[in-house]
């Protein structure tokens, strides 16, 4: 059963790590709101197992985050699903300060990749994990990680190559 003690312990843990986890969730989902939903879903799972967790809760939480994201974030709660969809229906205001440069474009392409490829690239270039660590965390083989990385980077390189074309050609394209 969830009680105030569990919530208190969890709050203490989150006081240290919540921002980083939130950033990870935003990268995995592509928006602040969807990131909140993803992190919330992972936290719900963590709450269920808080009393029986052995070792680092962050490890469990990160694993859950990535697996939810890699599975396409198929959350089961109808209520939450509806809320998320309602939120997704609203247009996010454009960020007037966002400068469209290659870095931004790469992240945008990243967010269009299939969930598993995206999760692999975030693990590799955000969390700085090795392929073996990624494979262990996602519960797949190193080969799968390598191929997902390769395909994801391939898409990004295509973009980068186009970006480096002369301005006129890029506009023509």
């Amino acid at each position: 059963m969830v009680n105030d003690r569990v919530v208190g312990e969890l709050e203490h843990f989150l006081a240290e790590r919540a921002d980083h986890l939130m950033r990870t969730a935003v990268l995995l989902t592509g928006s602040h709101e969807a990131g909140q939903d993803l992190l919330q879903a992972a936290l719900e799972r963590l709450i269920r197992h808080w009393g029986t967790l052995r070792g680092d809760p962050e490890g469990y939480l990160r694993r859950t985050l990535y697996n939810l994201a890699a599975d396409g974030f198929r959350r089961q709660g109808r209520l939450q699903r509806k809320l998320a969809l309602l939120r997704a229906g609203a247009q996010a205001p454009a960020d007037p300060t966002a400068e469209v440069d290659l870095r931004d474009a790469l992240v945008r392409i990243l967010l269009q990749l299939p969930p598993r490829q995206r999760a692999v690239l975030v693990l590799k270039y955000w969390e700085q994990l090795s392929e073996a660590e990624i494979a262990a965390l996602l519960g797949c083989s190193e080969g799968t990680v390598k191929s997902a990385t390769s395909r994801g980077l391939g898409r990004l390189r295509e973009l980068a190559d186009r970006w480096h074309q002369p301005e006129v050609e890029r506009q023509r394209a």
Partner: protein
Amino acid sequence: MNTDVEELLAEGMQRFTAEVQAPAGLARTASRLHRRRLAVRAAIACGTAAVTAAAVTAVAAVGVGGSARTGARGSQAHQVAYVVNRVENALAGANLVFEGRTTTAAGPSITWAYGSRHRWEEFTGRGCGHASPNGWCTHRGGSERYLAEGTALIGGKLTAAYVTYFDRKYSLSHRRVPPPANACSATGALEMGGPPAPIDHWSDFINQSLACGAASVTGHVWIGGAETTKITGSPITVRLSPDYAKVVHEKWARARWTLYVNPRTYLPVRMLGSTQTFGGPGGDTLFKSVTDVRWLPPTKANIRKALVTIPPGFHQVSSPAARPGLASQ
């Protein structure tokens, strides 16, 4: 070039998330959402459908002499059929508006139902207080209405409606709300995340719930100054669907209910429900709910209670059911 792309990607990620901060109250919100999900499921599993069926069976026992013990199977079936008819007639003939006020650890909710009209409203609860526009608890202020789901009268037609008050949005769907599943089937009893009492037509509801099986009269209890008959249903244990089991990391769920009925009107006045999930590494999880039921005369004002109204100034968004979204990414 490859290294450049990888470095730029890493920089882009840093830049993309530079301003991101986790909202306050994450743990409490997660806890609350977790309990709410269980509450909704518990209400479905142990709610009106199962309870009504229990009333039907239990009143049969009471009506034949006040004992839960019944005679031969044929006689019992006859009694049940008789009482089913009585209850159906009582509900249909009396033409009443159902009002159920549910209290759970996650916060209160209210259900109204009349014919094919129904409205379910959920409140934030005192622990959450005022909800911010992104749906998060602020822990300030008292409990407030959070969302409503049910039917609305749009252009003279009953239309499924879903309103979220915290962000002032609503959606409509012309797809008919399916009738409630048999509350005792594996899928019906543990259907995830539905409203606590998705009542469409009472007679269908009762008929579909008859398969719930045996219930027994376990005593008499005074509620609100009136004597009621306490009926306890047999626990229903089902194996969770693979999808749901994956979410909760448990394999089984056991639903129980207790019902208090008015022995003169055949109508329930209170329901208790509990759902326990178990069979996983995380230990059992138990959730309880209490619903107080009133039967209101079908005045215009009471019938209106069974309709969702769209507050002026709310922004319409696409129907959640019709949109691809996060759930299908």
